[in-house]
């Protein structure tokens, strides 16, 4: 008796907690699951499907506007990832290595774009670009995305620098390495996980950035979120479900890949 009660193991509180956790997950993922199911629904609507179709995916492959927007979004996201993590690396290096008056303020200012509402930021950028005479388009989207992603990349890269043992750099200097070599052979490899993490978050944030992009895109350049938005406003195309599913699968794959890479790294470090 006692042992079986022990085996089933869970008190009422624990059971309720599990059910609660399950409901939270359902709440989070139900809309996404509906989209994925609908992308295979022959009716093209968000109802209970009767049958299975790949038709919307076939349509997607022929939809030049969406494919073009996808390419634009990917290009911007990759460039933003590179620029944002590079700037984040430089800022983190400077902020963690130097002491100067107003350093705290400078660091706080880096985080400001995270707090300013996108609408405010968007209006400010439009006015600013206008004054400077920069035509809205690819370049302005790029600048806006770097602006909003930098606080996140900086935060991630800063954590790598906080735990950094400065004696490793002293040891490199001591063994004859100048500042340049010390940075590339010792500092950079050790903060690289933070830099990669920063680049990944910048990529993700840029890829689905909407509000700022809406303001600064101008007429010519359309990113994927902009195209999806205009489609669901004017015609509720089932192709949207298909492209959404592709993006979801892609995101999950990216996440898994980074996890796998970490596991492999850890194993290598243990086995070598």
């Amino acid at each position, binding site marked *: 008796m006692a042992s079986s009660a022990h085996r089933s193991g869970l008190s009422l509180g624990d059971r309720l907690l599990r059910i609660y956790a399950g409901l939270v997950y359902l709440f989070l993922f139900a809309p996404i699951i509906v989209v994925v199911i609908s992308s295979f629904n022959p009716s093209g609507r968000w109802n209970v499907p009767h049958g299975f179709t790949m038709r919307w995916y076939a349509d997607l492959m022929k939809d030049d506007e969406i494919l073009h927007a996808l390419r634009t979004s990917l290009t911007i996201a990759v460039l933003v990832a590179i620029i944002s993590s590079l700037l984040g690396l430089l800022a983190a290096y400077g902020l963690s290595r130097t002491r100067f008056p107003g350093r705290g303020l400078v660091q706080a200012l880096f985080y400001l774009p995270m707090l300013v509402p996108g609408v405010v930021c968007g209006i400010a950028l439009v006015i600013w670009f206008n004054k400077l005479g920069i035509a809205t388009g690819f370049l302005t989207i790029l600048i806006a995305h770097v602006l909003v992603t930098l606080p996140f990349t900086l935060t991630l890269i800063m954590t790598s620098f906080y735990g950094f043992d400065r004696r490793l750099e002293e*040891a490199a200097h*001591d*063994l*004859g390495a100048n500042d340049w070599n010390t940075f590339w052979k*010792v500092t950079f*490899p050790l903060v690289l996980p933070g830099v990669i993490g920063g680049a990944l978050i910048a990529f993700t944030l840029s890829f689905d950035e909407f509000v700022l992009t809406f303001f600064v895109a101008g007429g010519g350049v359309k990113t994927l979120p902009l195209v999806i938005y205009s489609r669901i406003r004017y015609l509720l195309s089932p192709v949207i479900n298909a492209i959404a599913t592709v993006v979801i699968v892609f995101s999950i794959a990216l996440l898994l890949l980074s996890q796998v890479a970490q596991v492999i790294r850890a194993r290598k470090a243990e086995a*070598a």
Partner: protein
Amino acid sequence: MSSEIDVSIRDVVKRFGVMTAVDHVSLDIHRGQFVTLLGPSGCGKTTTLRMIGGFEHPDEGEIAIRGEPMGNRPPHHRDTSMVFQNYALFPHMSVADNIAFGLKERKKPKAEIRERVQEMLRLVELPEHGGRRPKQLSGGQQQRVALARSLVVEPTVLLLDEPLGALDLKLRRQMQLELKRIQERVGITFIYVTHDQEEALTMSDRIVVMSAGKIEQEGSAEEIFERPRTRFVADFMGAQNILDADVVDADAQSARLRFGGGTLAVSEAGLLPGETVGVMIRPEKIQLSADGAGVPATVHERVYKGATMSYQLALADGTRLVADSMHGDHAERFAPGDMVSVTMQPRDLVVLRGVPVQGA
């Protein structure tokens, strides 16, 4: 031993804010010697070492290596190499790559690097560990890799900042002997920083005792241990008996001192009547007898220590003394409560200058 000077420190001062870490230190370190900077934490020993390595720069004074003034030259332009307290091995490189680092910076040919790395791994007795990561090695092994990494660049001077601090006692003892063996084999000048006086005695050709940014005494291990010049050194080297005494009268070679239990004759020059000094005597140099010829004392406690018997004594004024006597068949034995008489030979008494050590 060669008398050429590898490191010359002249009147060096280093301040951190309002704190003076190193206060007018001058020191010559001779080629091929194992020199230990010894002292409690905060005495300036590590700062001195870091200044020799170029990690800190003196506010005043000059450090020269092989006669060449270093000024504010950075570490990578100095012929010194440092073994860090936590080893500071590069975690993202293999053991072999760690050791090869300095040679690669010096743009040595690949074949030579490979050969030298193997040679170093053999020297520190880790010939099979080149492919491992530092984290996969034990503390003692990491310590050896750090040593190999610094030695491979053939520095003029090897600097060691409490490198055995993280090891357990048994491994520490073993590594002390091994460090000494390696130092004798490579013949490089070692400057070693520690707060452990036993470690200093085991390894050093010369010991420099530091306190509050200044050098208290410099000498061979034997000199420092047997003939400390100040109370601080005596206390730090573990002296058990330090008596306060006043100089009653003095001539050129000797003096008569008054202390709690009576008077003592010492063979020490340069004392002035009225001066207060400390007097150190080793427990094994104190003779006890029952006949009343010396200073009277009461046996307080008796501890059997195998080869010796250790007596805790109290003098008439309450001053405590520790005396160790061999307890052969002919030796007298005393029990707690016994009255004994203490005799101390002038040649065994070491006169100490300086103020009494706080809390001692």
